[in-house]
């Protein structure tokens, strides 16, 4: 892997959940625990689709070449219920993504954490309008 793909050996700062128990499919079958990574890039497109949304991110490599990565995130339904729209994460948003690369070695990864430039995690800590953890009734 070239460029901004940085192998993370052990990132103790990751905030991790046991919530994967409710995963829709076996993530370990799709992504490789032996290929942790950190990507930095700007958002090209967010597919707000089910059962998992996909973030298209442009990652600039040292030689100036830009590669497009697809990053798997969660179902958007609850976010929508909490007031999140596509405009919440505008195209061009700079993201740092910590995750694991696809087993087939393609430019795909699961986004363990989506981190904004100010260090906050996407959709957490009130970073999203209405995203305070409550359903809108």
């Amino acid at each position, binding site marked *: 892997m070239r460029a901004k793909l940085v192998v993370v050996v052990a990132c*103790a700062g990751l905030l991790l959940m046991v919530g994967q128990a409710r995963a829709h499919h076996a993530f370990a079958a799709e992504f490789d625990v032996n290929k942790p990574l950190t990507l930095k890039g700007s958002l090209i497109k967010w597919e707000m689709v089910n059962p998992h949304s996909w973030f298209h991110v442009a990652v600039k490599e040292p030689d100036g070449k830009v590669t497009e990565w697809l990053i798997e995130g969660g179902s958007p339904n609850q976010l929508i219920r909490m007031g999140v729209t596509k405009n919440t994460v505008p195209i061009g948003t700079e993201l740092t993504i910590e995750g694991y690369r696809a087993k087939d070695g393609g430019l795909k990864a699961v986004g363990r954490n989506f981190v904004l430039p100010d260090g906050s995690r996407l959709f957490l800590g009130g970073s999203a309008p209405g995203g305070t953890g409550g359903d809108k009734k």
Partner: protein
Amino acid sequence: MNRRSLVSVGILVLVAAVVLSATIAAQAPASAAKAAPAAKAAPAGKAYTPPKTPDGQPDLQGFWTNSTYVPLERPQGVTKEFYTPDEAEEAIKKAAAREAEQTEPGTTADVHYDFSQFGLDRSQSTIAKSLRTSLVVDPPDGKIPPVNAQGQKRAADRAAARKAAGGQYDSVQNMPIGSRCIIMGGAGPPMMNAGYNANYQIVQSPGYVMILTEMIHDVRVIPLDNRTQPPQGVRQWTGVSRGRWEGNTLVVETTNFNGKNAFRGASENMKVTERFTRVADDMIDYKFTVEDPATWDRTWTAEAPLAKTGGPIFEFACHETNYGIANILAGARAEEKQKAEQAKKGSN
């Protein structure tokens, strides 16, 4: 340990986590969670008169969720049917905290996106609170009856058939039906909490009740005109449902399952009887009884209240095949290739 073994271990870990999560969840509903209706296990429909639809049916319409921290079966060591309110709140806190616990970076269990960042942990959505220690109310011990010999043989036969079909990631057809976006566990009947997006919409029209399940977008259209069930040869993923009103309670009987989405190992001849009673503006008492002599020697009944929640329901339009399935199959082929190359090197 090779990669495949790692995956297998990972799956085992996931299964264990599900069991653990369910066990812990057993202890209560969420506190950090939305202030959902605090359903007491009071007798249904005593002091409340539900509104009526224009055609005179008790009105069940709206958006509902059965999200809960109460487990289906009573946890080991718990002997009572109900927690006190304080115990229930404490159990919810523990369960919510458990959901927020970290997994170890670099471990198979860590390979996933962060559910909390997408609002998918239960504490970020409405939950249907209950003081019950288990959803199962009959048998009185809160446990599903043991599977009988016939049911055990069916389970063994199904496992053998899966094994004969090859590895889970050998083909699309071998993968779980939920992963293939065909139907999600919990679509029902019986309607079981799906873990996240556990939402439903009920719409009534003269002679019909419609129940939309958010996860993978399944719909049941239930006629209320006493029509007979179709012949046994007519079988569907969610069975065939027929409904009737008994006072303010909607009673729905479902048979004619296709057996491909077996509920806890049941046979295709399972019969599910559901009872919906609106007991408050924001709560439906929902009970279901499962009857399948080919699996259990006695019927069993559970109570899983539906709490009012926000709408509308965003379309699910599950399209896993466009990415996830392809990625999983490609990953499995890449692993096989790598193994073959290693084996070749080893033999040289």
